[in-house]
């Protein structure tokens, strides 16, 4: 009893350190110290756990630790910096496997005794989520390191198969919980199904989305640790697992936003979303100020394309301010001026000179168009006709033949305007429906100020 109290006191200290560590990891200035805090917490927790386990034999433990430490150290030290994400995936898989094994091993405590249903349920969770994390991470690793085809793998009957898989898992889990034991066939079925689930969940996701998948699986491995914690009744597993589970979800969400996707889209794209993707083409995709921030924060080449709306909103000063913030963020910034933007020749020049945008950053249409593909984000500020692709593509358009700034060929386009209304020439603009276009509705000045606020 005494030992239990002391280990748990140590766990409390460890929990506090984990909390500090995670918090500090989220900010550039403190991230490294945060990692040290968190590793100290781990040391305390592990030593306390070791003492608290009141182990009878230490051989297996020592061998396990030695093997694990060796593999962990070597791979962390030797692997090239560029393959870090794969490595994290592998480590994450180990965590999942460990949770699965702990859950499984717990069953053997009860030899002969009845396993309480609650414990059985937590064991099932630990096994399921641990197994899913394990194989899911392996597949993610494979895709990232291109050991397996990194393209999304979609085959007919996939949805049916996945549905069947889920059904089977629910059934086995139920049957196992009714009569839980270390020798239950359902246990083995569950083990297999969990591993299969991980594979099935990740194969239909493309390689480019892997970082998000890993982050999600990381969150899962926290949940798995949490479930294992319930199974063995260990506080620190629950606290640390829950912290990782919850903050992992948030981080995943942040990453999705930075990639311009919803979490749901990533979570379920494996189950048939690929099919429906085509259908949403031609849809207007609004974006929030916050999401715009995440994308801009990660961009390294931003081009502003101002139009009459910037003048109406008198947004030139905030635009310049955002430009400077982006530059400070290590981003290349330019202002592409279309000759007829605005309502008088040189309209944009007057405004941008007033805001003291250096002449060097102003580029002409003919200079920006050849390198527009390298622009990560083209921010169209209240321009419309001058970025209307139908001037280039649609011979029936009244503005056909007018050269435009080809923002539709930039990686991402933000269009800042108040509505879907057309511009001076009154023609519709297919740009707004583009695949890579995001509409940031609202007064341009307010929208930009909002984004600046997010950077603050």
């Amino acid at each position, binding site marked *: 009893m005494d030992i239990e109290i002391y280990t748990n006191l140590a766990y409390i200290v460890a929990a506090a350190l984990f909390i500090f560590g995670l918090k500090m990891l989220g900010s550039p200035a403190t991230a490294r110290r945060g990692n040290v805090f968190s590793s100290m917490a781990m040391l305390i927790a592990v030593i306390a756990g070791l003492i608290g386990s009141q182990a009878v034999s230490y051989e297996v433990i020592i061998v396990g630790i030695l093997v694990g430490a060796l593999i962990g150290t070597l791979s962390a030290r030797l692997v090239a910096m560029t393959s870090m994400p794969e490595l994290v995936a592998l480590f994450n898989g180990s965590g999942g496997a460990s949770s699965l094994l702990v859950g499984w091993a717990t069953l053997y405590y009860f030899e002969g005794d009845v396993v309480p249903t609650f414990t059985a349920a937590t064991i099932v969770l630990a096994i399921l989520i641990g197994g899913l994390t394990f194989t899911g991470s392996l597949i993610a690793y494979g895709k990232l390191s291109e050991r397996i085809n990194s393209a999304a793998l979609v085959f007919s009957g996939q949805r049916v198969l996945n549905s069947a898989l889920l059904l089977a898992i629910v059934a086995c889990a139920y049957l196992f919980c009714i009569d839980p034991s270390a020798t239950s066939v359902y246990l083995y079925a569950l083990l297999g199904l969990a591993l299969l689930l991980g594979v099935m969940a990740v194969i239909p996701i493309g390689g480019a989305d892997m970082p998000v998948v890993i982050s999600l699986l990381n969150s899962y491995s926290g949940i798995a640790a949490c479930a294992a914690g319930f199974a063995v009744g260990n506080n620190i597993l629950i606290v640390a697992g829950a912290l990782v589970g919850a903050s992992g979800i948030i981080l995943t969400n942040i990453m999705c936003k930075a990639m311009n996707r919803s979490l749901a889209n990533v979570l379920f794209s494996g189950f048939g979303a690929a099919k429906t993707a085509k259908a949403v083409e031609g849809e207007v995709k609004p974006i929030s100020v916050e999401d715009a921030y995440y994308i801009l924060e990660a961009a390294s080449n931003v081009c502003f394309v101002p139009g009459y709306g910037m003048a109406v909103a008198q947004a030139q000063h905030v635009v310049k301010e955002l430009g400077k913030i982006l530059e400070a963020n290590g981003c290349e910034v330019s202002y592409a001026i279309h000759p007829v933007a*605005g*309502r*008088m*020749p*040189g*309209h944009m020049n*007057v405004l941008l000179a007033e805001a003291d945008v250096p002449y060097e950053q102003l580029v002409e249409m003919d200079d920006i168009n050849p390198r527009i593909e390298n622009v990560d984000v083209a921010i169209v500020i209240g321009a419309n006709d001058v970025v209307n692709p139908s001037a280039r593509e649609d011979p029936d358009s009244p503005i*056909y*033949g*007018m050269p435009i700034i080809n923002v539709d060929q930039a990686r991402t386009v933000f269009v800042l305007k108040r509505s879907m209304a057309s511009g001076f020439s009154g023609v519709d603009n297919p740009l707004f429906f583009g695949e890579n276009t995001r509409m940031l509705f609202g007064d341009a000045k307010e929208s930009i100020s909002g984004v600046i606020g997010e950077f603050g």
Partner: protein
Amino acid sequence: MQIAVPSESLPSERRVALIPDAAKKLVRAGLDVHIESGAGLRSGYADADYEAVGALIHNDQTALLASADLVLRVRKPSLEDVAKLKSGAIHVSYLDPYNEAGLVDALAAANITAISMEMIPRTTRAQKMDALSSQANLAGYVMVILAAQQLDRILPMMMTPAGTLSPARVFVIGAGVAGLQAIATAKRLGARVEAFDTRAVVAEQVQSLGAKFVEIDLGETGQTKDGYANALTPEQLELQRLGMKDVISQADIVITTAQLFGRPAPRIVTADMVAAMKPGGVIVDMAVDSGGNVEGSEPDQTVDVNGVSIIGMANLPAQVCKDASQMYSSNLVNLVSEYWDSEAKHFNLDMEDDILQGCVITHGGALVNAAIQSIRGQGA
């Protein structure tokens, strides 16, 4: 294909139809460019500059015109010039076709394809050839500089140890291309700017430059489909005068830019309004050439009316002739390039094209322009 750029015959015309940079583009496109000796001199371009880009210099204007397939110039040709042109040649310049019936007839008779730069339609696609806009833009800037130079005050506000100078008040009437640029320039110099236009749609544009739009309720006005203003009824003009008198009496500088295309300009600022201004005030009348918006303005003169100066400079863009020439040349080059097939070395004057339909006045020996024809119809 031989392009000829004669010197401008009007001594006050400092612009040139083709600057060396523009000539270079045409030479590159495979056209032969011939320049009359000294044509660019008043804009600061020597014959050598043209030769450097591959143009040929001619001393004899008559020979130059006679051999040209395409003549580019700023001002309308004289009747003698028309006589010198070869039949079938294309002549591009300002023409004032609404008022120059005789000249148009002469051009038609001489079988010249005459393109009038004023008649380039105001469509989005034609903007790059629109010389009226490009020159009006510069005129807007020039008017403010002239007014600032004439005014016995400074435009910006200054809070100094020797007291506070309040910002000058500038009132711009007519917020078209020139008016907007005038607003922008006056704003830049720190003046308090107000503007008025009969087209209510420009209120937003005025505000987008940080100036104040003066609201005067005139009832129904409107604009033509090309973006030109409709003429006002006499009652509306009276209403407008009353509404503006107040603003004018407080203004240090008044700039009027109200032109009605092809017709005499409206008389907006009357003698009593001028009288209401403070001594030392300045008025710039951009429409002085087409009748004047201001009572008492005289072309190319600065008239003093009880201490108020009325500047009536007719050719405002020529004040900044270097930039004006550059922009006008660009307009011409854009026009030529649009219809010049550099593969086939052929000038492709497709009379179905909406731009050409607007700006070609005579072709194949006849007056072909619908707008001018309809005016003639009325006249008859």
